Structures are given as structure tokens and as C-alpha cells.
């Protein structure tokens, strides 16, 4: 893009003379990541880039409703601080059934469904699955797999809760105990509950590796919160009118005994 420079052009920092309202509007049309970088440009930029007017625009439109479902008292000196806090420290909603956070670079909504809200086949049978608290878990209970033949764990979320026009990924958040055994591979699939049956989805399930030899890229990855995660699949959320999405991990063909994993929940997030 060529700009015409008049012969008498003297470099002027025009941003210094723009009304703050205009600069705020301009910054709010960029992204959280951009706004955080603008603070380093100049004092004028920093003043606008730190303003509540700008950061308010980066929150999802329903964030106040979401926060009201939490028991935590959200007090922050600024909208930017509140934004960063929601990114770095997920809050619990609905009495601890799920957690909520924001994706830092984009402001999109992330949710983790607690183990207690997952559909775990044989989850009620104490010889197979145990429910206990774990120091690393954000939820009050995690599900510990003693031993089971039929492994089937699923987490569900309503698309209307998610950010619009966003590609979402579903992850099983877990730890592998030392005694982890019986699960080299498993199958995983994500489906829209209203438009695809369980059986149809099962047919197209992909293979996920939980241990053993193989390319590192396909094994469970470490997260920042001390847990591991396994990608179950992805889907595109358009305007959130597609009903519920179901993300499922299963090993129901190889019926050998499996055990030694701890499930914290299923997370739905943009990347």
C-alpha cells in the first residue's frame, strides 16, 4: 500500500491528538493480544490500551450472566485485570458442576465439565470407579478408575453456551497413575447430539493413544495445571443453535481390564 507523502510532510504522532474515545474504539476493534502489546508503544497508547472501555469489549457479551452463576466474589481493580484473572484462574459455576475461563488471546469462552457431570458407564460401581477429592483438581471430586472392562466416558455441553463462529476442541483431562494398564489405544468421537446418533458416531470414531510406543504427538499432552489431556475431537460452533455436543472416549471392543487413570473432567475450548 503506497501512501502519498506531501513534500512538506513532517512526522507527527497523530494519536496524541485523537480524542480518547476514538482511540478506545480503534483498540476495541483489535484483540486482547493486540491491546496488551499496545501498552508498550507509547504513553498515549498505554493509557487507552489499559482502559476499561477497551477491555469491556473483549469479554463475551454474556459474561456477567456467567459470572453470576459462580459463588466466587469477582472483584478486580480494572476490566483488564478481571479479564486476565478469568483467563488464568477458572471459576466454578453452578455449585461446582463446571468451570469457566477465557482464552487469553481471543476472549473466547472455555468450559470444563466436572467428572461428576460426565456420563461414565459403571461409574456408580465402587469396585470399578472411585470418587474422591484430589489436591490438584479444581473440582471437589475426581473419578478414579480402579478397573473396568467397558470404558465409556462422555462429556456434554450446550452449544448456546459457547462462543459463536468458533472451532472448538474437546479434551479429556486426566492423570495416569503408575499402575495405569490395559489402555494403549482407545476411541474418541465428538458429535452433535441432535443430528447424529451414538451408533453412527461410533462408526467414525478416531483412535487416540494413551500410552505405549508411537509418535509423541499423539500421546496425552501435559497441561499447565498439572494434568494431562487427550483430544477427543473438534467441531465448529456457528451461532450456538445446534443443541448439545457430546464428546466421548471409549474402549468397548477390546474388553480386557483397564485401570489406573484419574479423570478430572472434559474441557471444551477454542484451541
Amino acid at each position, binding site marked *: *500500500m503506497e*501512501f*502519498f*507523502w506531501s513534500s512538506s*510532510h513532517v*512526522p*507527527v*504522532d*497523530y*494519536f496524541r*491528538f*485523537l*480524542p480518547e*474515545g*476514538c482511540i478506545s*474504539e*480503534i*483498540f476495541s*476493534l*483489535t*484483540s*486482547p*493480544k*493486540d491491546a*496488551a*502489546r*499496545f*501498552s*508498550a*508503544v*507509547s*504513553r*498515549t*497508547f*498505554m493509557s487507552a490500551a489499559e482502559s476499561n472501555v477497551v477491555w469491556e469489549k473483549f469479554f463475551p457479551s454474556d459474561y456477567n450472566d456467567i459470572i453470576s452463576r459462580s459463588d466466587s466474589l469477582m472483584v478486580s481493580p480494572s476490566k483488564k485485570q478481571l479479564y486476565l484473572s478469568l483467563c488464568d484462574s477458572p471459576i466454578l459455576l453452578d455449585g461446582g458442576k463446571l468451570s469457566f475461563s477465557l482464552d*487469553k*488471546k481471543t476472549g473466547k469462552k472455555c468450559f470444563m465439565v466436572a467428572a461428576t457431570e460426565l456420563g461414565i458407564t459403571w461409574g456408580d460401581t465402587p469396585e470399578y470407579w472411585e470418587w474422591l477429592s484430589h489436591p490438584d483438581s479444581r473440582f471437589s471430586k475426581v473419578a478414579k478408575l480402579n478397573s473396568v472392562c467397558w470404558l465409556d466416558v462422555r462429556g456434554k455441553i450446550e452449544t448456546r453456551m459457547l462462543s459463536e463462529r468458533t472451532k472448538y476442541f474437546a479434551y479429556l483431562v486426566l492423570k495416569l497413575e503408575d499402575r495405569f494398564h490395559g489402555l494403549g489405544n482407545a476411541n474418541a468421537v465428538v458429535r452433535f447430539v441432535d443430528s447424529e446418533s451414538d451408533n453412527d458416531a461410533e462408526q467414525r470414531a478416531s483412535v487416540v493413544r494413551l500410552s505405549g510406543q508411537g509418535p509423541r504427538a499423539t500421546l496425552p499432552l501435559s497441561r499447565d495445571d498439572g494434568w494431562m489431556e487427550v483430544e477427543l475431537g473438534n467441531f465448529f460452533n456457528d451461532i450456538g443453535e445446534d443443541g448439545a455436543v457430546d464428546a466421548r472416549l471409549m474402549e468397548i471392543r477390546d474388553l480386557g481390564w483397564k485401570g489406573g487413570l484419574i479423570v478430572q473432567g472434559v474441557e471444551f475450548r477454542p484451541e
Partner: protein
Amino acid sequence: MSSTKLLTLKTSDGEEFKLDEAVAVKSQAIKNMVEDDCVSNAIPLPNVDSKTMTKVIEYWKKHSEEGVSKDQLNDFDKGFLEVHHSVLYDLLLAANYLNDKELVDVICQEVADRIKGKTPEEIRKEFDIKNDFTPEEEEKIRQENAWAFD
């Protein structure tokens, strides 16, 4: 068919522009004056020079034309905004003063597009912005926002 009324706008450098009222009321400020009936003579616009007013009127006229498709308008806007940032600045101030929200939004989006994804150095260079931080201050800001600087 109602008769078209012509308004006279007078810019800071004394130039007069005659314009259909129907077009000029894209400016909420002018619209208010028309409704308050204070437009018998030329409307003074001391905060807008003739060079900028010419461009604003060019925008207003294109966006008032009949039979222009959305694609054609987008193409027009794209070319209209392909100017040096000093011109954008004058346009933005004028649009703000004239209270034409549509034009303000379009210019803000253009500037936003020019600063998105850029490093502070790139932004300073493109917009002739002086770095008025000390090296220590700048380093502190970068560290506080380290997540944004990968």
C-alpha cells in the same frame, strides 16, 4: 416528490460547499441544526477544512447513491480509505465533529486493521510515534504483558 433543499456548509478556511439536505443530514450535528431550524445561512464548520470536507462529501454522496451494490460500496470504501494516516486522522476528527457514526466506525476499523498483529516497533514506525518510555519502563510493560509478545 419533495423538493430537494440545498444546504451551504462553510469550512474553516472559508470555502463554501452546497449540498442536498438529504445527504448532509448523514451528519447528526447538521441534522440537529436543520431540525432546530438554524440553517437559514451557511452552516459554519470551524473544525473542518475544505480538503477534508471534500473527502467527507465524496463519501456521503457515494453512500447516498441509488443502485449501488454492497460490493461496489465496499470497493469504494477500500479505495477511499487507502490514504496516509494523516488524512485518516483529519477525516476521523471531522467525522467525530460532524457526528457521523457510520463514517467514524469505518475509519476506526481501517486504523484498527493497520495496527492489528503488529509489534510496537512496527506501529511506531508506521505512525511516526515517539517512544516516550525509558528502556526500563518499556521492559517492565513487556514483562507484565509477556503472554502477548510470543
